[in-house]
């Protein structure tokens, strides 16, 4: 038998001999032909290494640790035990957690559009070239963002006071009977007001800088075509800053789900209006630091993190879809 073994899948046009040689060679090399090994070059790691290390340490490690924690349950009596996904099962049917989620969702649906609407209005106004003292307005709208959140809440907490604060003064001066902003029914509204005040300037700045980047030629072209102010806004300005709008919305969505500072600080002056599970973050915080339920708190944190990610992703998807149209 001088004829080489014919492979059943021998490609047409390739002689049997050639095919056999190539096939044999391949088999040989995959069997460990050390001569042909390419030395791996590791020097690239020196460049990305520091980043990877810090990334792993600061971002991945806490996340992995939280997931690890969430699979256990440590009780005051009985110690630590592995419970698998039981904490997640508990979270799924925990009315307190879902009440908190519902609350921040309502907050998101009401507060974010108002805040972004105001920010957009301010940015367009500043960009309209019809205002004098633009830097002054820009600075004063942005100023609240520079006030530390804790201080901001203290200021507002004082103004909300219905016996000695600003609300009390208004009531006394006008003979009005405003309800207490710190009462249970109004507290979410009051928090929304604080958050709006704090972050309108920040979002305005994002929009304003995006508007500044719009090429001047577009405006000139629009003017030549006879577009009025509003036509320019809707046909040029808004489409041009769509990216900034989406980013700001995503930030605000995340911010809403992570609502913590404002209710947490207001709790000291209105403890009876803000429950320990007012927002998902506050709930996780109280679970771990007041109830020592670190494991369940970790599960809550991860579930709310996933929900936040999904919603933020949907927002991004929605924005992109519109862009594609």
């Amino acid at each position, binding site marked *: 038998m001088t004829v080489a073994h014919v492979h059943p899948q021998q490609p047409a046009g390739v002689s049997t001999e050639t095919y056999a040689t190539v096939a044999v060679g391949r088999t040989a090399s995959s069997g460990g032909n050390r001569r042909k090994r390419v030395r791996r070059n590791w020097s690239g790691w020196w460049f990305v290494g520091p980043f990877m290390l810090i990334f792993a340490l600061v971002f991945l490690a806490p996340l992995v640790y939280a997931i690890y924690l969430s699979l256990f349950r440590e009780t005051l009596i009985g110690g630590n035990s592995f419970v698998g996904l039981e904490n997640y099962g508990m979270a799924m049917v925990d009315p307190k957690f879902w009440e908190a989620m519902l609350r921040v969702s309502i907050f998101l649906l009401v507060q974010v559009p108002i805040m972004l609407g105001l920010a957009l209005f301010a940015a367009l106004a500043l960009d309209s070239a019809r205002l004098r003292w633009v830097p002054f307005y820009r600075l004063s709208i942005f100023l609240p963002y520079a006030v530390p959140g804790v201080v901001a809440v203290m200021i507002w907490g004082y103004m909300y006071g219905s016996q*000695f604060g600003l609300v009390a003064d208004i009531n006394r001066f006008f003979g009005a009977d405003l309800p207490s902003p710190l009462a249970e029914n109004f507290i979410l509204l009051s928090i929304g007001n604080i958050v709006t005040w704090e972050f309108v300037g920040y979002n305005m700045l994002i929009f304003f800088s995006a508007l500044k980047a719009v090429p001047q030629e577009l405006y000139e072209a629009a003017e030549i075509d006879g577009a009025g102010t509003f036509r320019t806004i809707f046909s040029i300005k808004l489409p041009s800053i769509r990216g900034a709008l989406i980013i700001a919305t995503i930030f605000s969505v995340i911010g809403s789900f992570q609502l913590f500072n404002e209710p947490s600080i207001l709790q*000291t002056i209105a403890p009876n209006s*803000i429950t320990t599970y007012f927002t998902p973050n506050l709930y996780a915080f109280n679970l771990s630091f007041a109830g020592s339920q670190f494991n369940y708190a970790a599960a809550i944190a991860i579930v709310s993190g996933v929900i936040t990610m999904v919603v933020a992703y949907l927002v991004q998807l929605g924005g992109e879809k519109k862009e594609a149209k």
Partner: protein
Amino acid sequence: MERNTTRRWARLGAVLGTGALLVGVLAGCSGAAPGADSGSTDTDAALKEDVTLTWWTWSDTTQEQADAISKAYPNVTFDVVKLENPDAVVTKLQNAIKAGKGAPDIVPVEYQTLPQLTLGDALADLAPYGLDEYEDAFTASTWNSVNVQDQLVAMPSDSGPMVMIYNKALYEKAGITEAPTTWDEFAVASAAIHAADPEAYIANSGDAGFFTSMIWASGGQPFKTDGENITIDLQDEGTKKFSDFWGARLEAGELSGLSTWSDEWTKALTQDKLGTLLMGSWMISGMDDYGPAGRFQVAPMPTWDGEPASAENGGSGLAVTSQSENKAAAAGILKYLADGEGRALLNQNGFPSTIADLENPEWLDHPYESYGGQPANQIGAASSASVIPGWQYLPYQGYANNVFSDSVGKALGSGGDLNEALVEWQDTLVQFGNEQGFTVNK
């Protein structure tokens, strides 16, 4: 080759992962790892050697006290770490215990938090160091508070027998010339004050610490702990007596909704809009900030039947942590502070817990300028003697006080049914206790 490398990495990963998991599990198991303490209980010998003791505190005066102690014990230096408030100290301590390291040597602990920290093995038993010999020096109620689950877990530092501090002028404006001695009289005064000035209230509705103390003073004992068995009854006779009474004031709109210690609360006190503080005697020396001399007076707590009855509200002891590597030295310092010279140091700030000081005529007759010369300590001392015995806090009182606002606090804020809210609070506490491995109400 490529596949080999991948496999090797995978194997390495698996080994590392398992290792990490094991370390984690081991760390999880060894919640309260004992420090490298020598184990000696000879406190005198320990204080003869050079030692640095870490001392966490929420008080501004601890550094001064530490400096003074260092004069008496030149070998001992202190590293005083001030945290913002008692809750911050507890949280930080619990985290350190959970982490297995980082706890201080000496730490102040509120009486109500002692069971919780004892259960978490955060505190050292001080009896082996000879602190049990000081029992007779302390009042029965404070000594009872620091003895938890058959261990002596702290040395009482101050105490808080309840007194009534009231705004005499505000009461008089409403036609009430004498301090109410019974709760019925208190109710009459309450209605009169709010009627005379619709912006004025006899008191604010209060927080968890106030509520539990008031239940205590009314003879209630809603929390009973026996090892791992807990009974919670927030509808027992004493509890209900108080909640019915307080609920009636709430329904009548006679209680201010301001949160204790808030800015508005301070304003209400200084502007004659808040008539009464029902608080621990430590507040006796703290009224200078709230008005001109003589505006306030101190009176005994009103009672249900005219017989003196009181409770502790606040107050704390000094403890040595289980992680301390200098337990003997730390316990030696607590001994120094238990009586004599050291005790005088401790008593400069706070209402005493030692019988000798409570009976000291000079201290008893000390006239307080803020009360127009009234020797107010006498009232606090009398209250100390009439504290109702047998009260217990839950081994998870911190959690209980935290979730108080979800049920009872909510009712206080919105004028809801207090008894219903108490039952709701109880349900939460029963569920939490059972989840945590206790046997609650079974």
